[in-house]
């Protein structure tokens, strides 16, 4: 099987590739992005500021690809307000701590 480039978004750094299985007719589309710069920015911001503004505090900066992963794996939709309690729970998990540029209690 050959992997073809389907899309490369220069603005967001997101890549999509396409694979087709001639025998079964199955199509596989892979989507990925390097989220490390966001995690690094979150970490460095943590050192510079507490994220507290006049009216709102920066609580999280979640790369699209990670939000998509949560949707598939846990059924949690980070784009929806009603899923905020579940998102909040994930953000408090040490595994996802680098999605938070701040550490105030959510």
């Amino acid at each position, binding site marked *: 099987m050959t992997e073809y480039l389907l899309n490369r978004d220069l603005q*967001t750094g997101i890549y999509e590739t396409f694979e087709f299985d001639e025998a079964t007719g199955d199509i596989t589309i892979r989507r990925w992005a390097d989220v490390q710069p966001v995690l690094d920015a979150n970490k460095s911001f943590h050192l510079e500021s507490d994220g507290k503004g006049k009216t*709102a505090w920066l*609580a999280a*900066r979640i790369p699209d690809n990670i939000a998509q992963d949560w949707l598939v794996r846990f059924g949690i939709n980070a*784009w929806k*307000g009603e899923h905020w309690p579940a*998102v909040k729970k994930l953000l408090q998990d040490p595994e996802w701590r680098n999605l938070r540029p701040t550490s105030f209690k959510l």
Partner: protein
Amino acid sequence: MNKAGRRTELAYQLTKRAKELKIDIEAIMLSNQAKVVGAAATAPKAASVLSWIKTNVSHVGTNPTGDGTDARVDGTPRAFTEAMLKTVMAGVYTNSSEDLDVLMVGASNKAVASGFSGGAQKTYDVSDRKLVTTIDVYVGDFSTVRIIPNRFMRVRDALLLNWSLWSVDWLRPIRQEELAKTGDAEKRMLVGEWTLRANNEAGNGLVADLTAP
């Protein structure tokens, strides 16, 4: 005759065109378009989000009627301010029993909106291309706001959306049809018919007529 790869090429091209179609649908929904009723020689058009929202709007131009029959009339752009955002959010709070899901903005105004919380703007400039698209979550005393950029919307608009108050309704879901051969090539058509349904425009908001810094 070696036909290896022909099915792959067809599937690849269909996938690419389907992706283009999906982008076109999103761009149309976020454009400033009034509905057009179809006729024998007239293609029907769906009313876009901007032709529905009229209740909670900060604007310079003229609001549409709010039933999809006409588009917004744009006004002279001005800079996006926190006061505009707060006014519209307060309007949504008053006119709806539900919370907003997202503040959707063009890339340049995402940086502006991120600055409203104070301090974060410089470090998180989205024009830095190394950073992938993100959902920025801001927690306030009375609400939680998720700011997301959208490259297919007009940069002059900032949309405050409640997803549950919109739906895409399909009359004919997208499918492929084989077209008659007129040469050596194989031809396919992707065809579908949809519209955007606004369940309650007053549960959403819009800051219109913005400059793109």
